[in-house]
Structures are given as structure tokens and as C-alpha cells.
């Protein structure tokens, strides 16, 4: 896949920018703070067993705007982080929107339905968010503008125990953030 060739360059840019942007008062980026030696980015391995390493944005994740691109929420099959073919047109639309609206970043929030172990669901939500990030990077969006998080099954979008509710909670929400 050709898109992977660009990834290392983008990551270097990402980490450099993220390091410059760290804000010790807010700590949203996961930088600074009280961890002894737990500094992120010290040993980033690219492409060994994974996709593009994730990054945290220097903004409050709870302030992401999920309304603007709400119709582009990407849905997944049970226990899967593969983006279904039918969902890919949504991501093409997201890429177009980003190109038409400079000055924005995306906050990709991964979710899983409530069934099963919360801990596995958190990893599943992360894999979904990272899969969407990699796909969007492949469509030409700079990785520095793509942030991710996983809420696993801990913050369902739709309450309830129906198959319908489960299906709506297996997703990645596309949040819009004004570039800091």
C-alpha cells in the first residue's frame, strides 16, 4: 500500500508539533505532568505491528463538535475494526470537507457496544479510531490534523440492550476541532 510510505514522515512532523504544543496547565496532550519518565514519544516504533502511532491533541476532547459531520459516523460489524466498504464514501466526504475547511482538525472517537469485557472493548474502540485515522491519512489528510481516542463501551451513544442500540454504538464519531 503506497499510503504507508508517507507515514514515517508524517509521524516525525506530528511528534515535533505535538512536543511544541504541549500545555502543562491543561495536560490534555498527555505531556508533562507527574509521570516519572513516562514521557510519550521517546521510543516510537513505526510500522512494527501497527499503523500510525496515535497522538493526543492540545484541546479538551469533550469540546469536540460531533454535529457538523454527524452523518459521517462510521459503523462497524461486531468485534471488527475493519471499515466496511459501504462506510468508505463517508470518509471520502470527510476528506473533502477538511480540504474545503482549512484550520480544522478531526477528533476520531472510537466506541464499542456494551457486550463483553470493557477492557477488550476499549482496545477495539481504539483500533476502530486508528483504522479511520489511517484511512483518512491515506486519502491525503495530514496525520498532524487527526487525533484519536477510545471510549470503549463506557460511553455508549445510544442506551439500551437492543441489537439496534448495539449497532449504533459500534462506531467512530467524527469530531471537528478548531485548530489551536
Amino acid at each position, binding site marked *: 500500500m503506497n499510503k504507508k510510505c508517507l507515514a514515517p514522515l508524517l509521524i516525525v512532523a506530528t511528534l515535533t508539533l505535538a512536543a511544541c504544543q504541549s500545555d502543562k496547565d491543561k495536560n490534555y496532550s498527555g505531556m508533562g505532568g507527574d509521570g*516519572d519518565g513516562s514521557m510519550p514519544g521517546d521510543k516510537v516504533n513505526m510500522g*512494527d505491528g501497527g499503523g500510525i502511532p*496515535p497522538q493526543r491533541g492540545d484541546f479538551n476532547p469533550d469540546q469536540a463538535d460531533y454535529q457538523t459531520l454527524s452523518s459521517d459516523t462510521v459503523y462497524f460489524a461486531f468485534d471488527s475494526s475493519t471499515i466496511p466498504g459501504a462506510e468508505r464514501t463517508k470518509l471520502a466526504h470527510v476528506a473533502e470537507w477538511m480540504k474545503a475547511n482549512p484550520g480544522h482538525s478531526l477528533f476520531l472517537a472510537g466506541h464499542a457496544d456494551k457486550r463483553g469485557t470493557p*477492557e*477488550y472493548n476499549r482496545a477495539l474502540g481504539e*483500533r476502530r479510531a486508528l483504522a479511520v485515522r489511517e484511512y483518512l491519512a491515506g486519502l491525503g489528510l495530514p496525520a498532524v490534523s487527526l487525533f484519536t481516542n477510545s471510549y470503549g463501551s463506557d460511553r455508549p451513544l445510544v442506551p439500551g440492550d437492543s441489537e439496534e442500540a448495539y449497532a449504533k454504538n459500534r462506531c467512530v464519531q467524527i469530531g471537528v476541532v478548531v485548530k489551536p
Partner: protein
Amino acid sequence: MTAFKFSPLFLRTILFTILLGGVTFTAHAQVNVEPSVLVRVGINPLGGAEGSMGTQVLSADLKRTGMISPVGGGSGDFVASGEVSESGVTGKLAKKSGEQVFSQTFSGKPRAAVHQFADAITKAVTGLPGFATSKIAFVSDSGGGKELYFGDIDGFGIRPITHDGVISASPSLNHDASKLTYTSYKSGYPDIYLIDLGSGDRKRIAFFPGINSGPAFSPDGSLIAMTLSKDGNPEVYVMPAGGGSPTRITRTRGAETSPSWSPTGDRLVYSSDDRGSPQLFISSSSDVSEPDHLVTGNSYCTRPDWSPDGKLICFTTRTGGQFQIGVYDVASRTAHLITTSGGQDPSWTADSRHLVYSNNGHLYILDVVSHQSTPIETSIGGAGEPTVSR
């Protein structure tokens, strides 16, 4: 009913045989624990200001072992007696013949001291460690956010540990329940925190880009295994309990979660979906090694927990659309289900015979030999992800 007399050694052999018979060799007929093989411990009503509470708690603790039948003071293979005061318990255990087994002082608050007395009796008459003094921690969403709760394994004294109004998840207690590590979204992202339960101090120990989640204390409490996705994919890492540089343990294209330590601390069992659906694997806990796949016969296996005696690994599995608890036998490399009406997120108690697990927001203790499941009575609804000190 026929009364049997057992020497402790003979009894241990019997219990061990039952354990193996019931758990390992599932193809054979299930050996049920007959009331006649329970050790009968007579309890003389305990004296002192807190004696009546003490008698009740002691009886419930001994019954919960699944190996002891508490009976009236006049009968039994052993007889327990003692005094309960505000500062502790003076407890005695004697054989039916009158020969003393122990006479010991257990200091602490009355209820805590009675739990110590119960564990001493359990150890003396079965040879196995008791779990009456164990603590549990769990998560509950009954208050809006997901907060952590902590208290006694019998459901007494459960109190909230966090009041953050955000997602708290996957708690793990160290062996003496003085420290707790867990995942919190306090920063907006899932980070790993360490709480000193004595002082209440809280420290963020892992906050890399991506998820930092599912921490588990090593048996000696010096290390914490966890899932980090900082390198592009959720993988298992090990880091010093006080924070520091993580050592990578897995390297796959799948997601690795819920590491649990072998009792010797040299290996980790965890869940990985590298082969499509989540399966259990064992790896070295010191560096990346070739993982050993545990064949369970089920395609969805998550959240393993390694028993303190090293022989069994319990896990959550999905079968027929329902989540159940399975047990994997390390020596025979076989697994079977031990629940039929649902359950998930099991954790072993100190005796390697009981599991604390959750089902539909309630917590239970399950005896893996008798398959008896007993609710843990708390007033907290929406409970999940229980963990036990051991």
C-alpha cells in the same frame, strides 16, 4: 449422617483430589462436594463486647470457603472459641479430642480481626489460604460517571474511592490491598493512575498518546503490566509500579489486552485478537517472546486471570451469544465453562478455588469446585470489573 474423622493431611489430599476431579478432568463424572467431606468446625459463641457480631461473621466466613461447615459448638471435627473486643480477637482452635491447634491474638478492628481468625482456621483445617480478609474493588456507573468502589469481599464497608464524574475502569489491587491501580479519563484520555489507599494520594503513572489501560500489579507489587497503544496498536507493556519506562512484551497486528501475571511473575497471560477473534496467550514478562496460544475451544476469550497457585486461568468467553466464565487448566491444556447463566470479568481469590465476577451489574463469588454462586450483597448497583486482593 455419618461423622468422619480426618487428619489435616488426609483432608488436604481429599480436597486436592476433588479439585482436580472437578476442574481438570471434565470428561470424567463430576465429583460433587458432599456435605460429609466438608470439615465440620463447631463455633462456641464468641465472648466479649462484639461477640455476637463476631460469631455471625466467623460462621459466614467459614461457610464461604466451600470447604468448611460451621456447626454448633457442641459438635464438629474442630472447635473454635474466643473473645472479641474493640482491639481485636483472642481466638482458639482445638481438635474434637481437645488437643489445641492454635491460640492466637488477632489485632485490629473487631470485624477485621474476626476475618483474620477465620483465615487462620481455614489454613489450619484445609491447608489452603482463606480469603476472608481479602478486599475487592470494582467499578459502578450507578452515580452517572463510572466511579471506583472498594471494601471487604463479604460486601461490608464498600465505599467510593473516586468522585471524578468521568470514566474510571479496570481496577487492580496489590496483594495487601494498600495500593490500587486503574484507568481514568480524568485528563480526557485513558491514563493509568496509582492510588495509595492509606493516604489517598493519587499519581498518574502512564499517559502516552493513545490508550493507557488495564493495569495489573505483579505478585510482588513492584511492576505493573498494562495495555498501551502508543506504538500504533494496543500492545502489552510492563513498567515499574512507581512509573518509568515501559518494556514492550507483545508485537502483533492485533490488540492485546488484560494482562495477568503468573504467580512467579515471570509470565503474563493476556487476550489477543491477532488471529481474528480474541484468544488467550502466554508470554514472558521480561521482553517480546514467541507467544503460547491457549486453545480453549471458544472463539471469543478475554480478560484472563491466573490463579495464585498457578494451575488455573479463568477468563470471559462468548458462547451462543452469551458471556460465560471459563477455566483453563495449565497442566492438561484443557478448558471448560463453569457458569451457565452468564458472567464476566472473573478474578481469583487467594485459595485458587473461588472467583469474584460480575453479571448484569451484580457481583458474585463462585466456587469452581461445587459451581455454587453466591451474590456479594452491596447497596451499589451497576457494578462491574471486580478485582480481589490476594
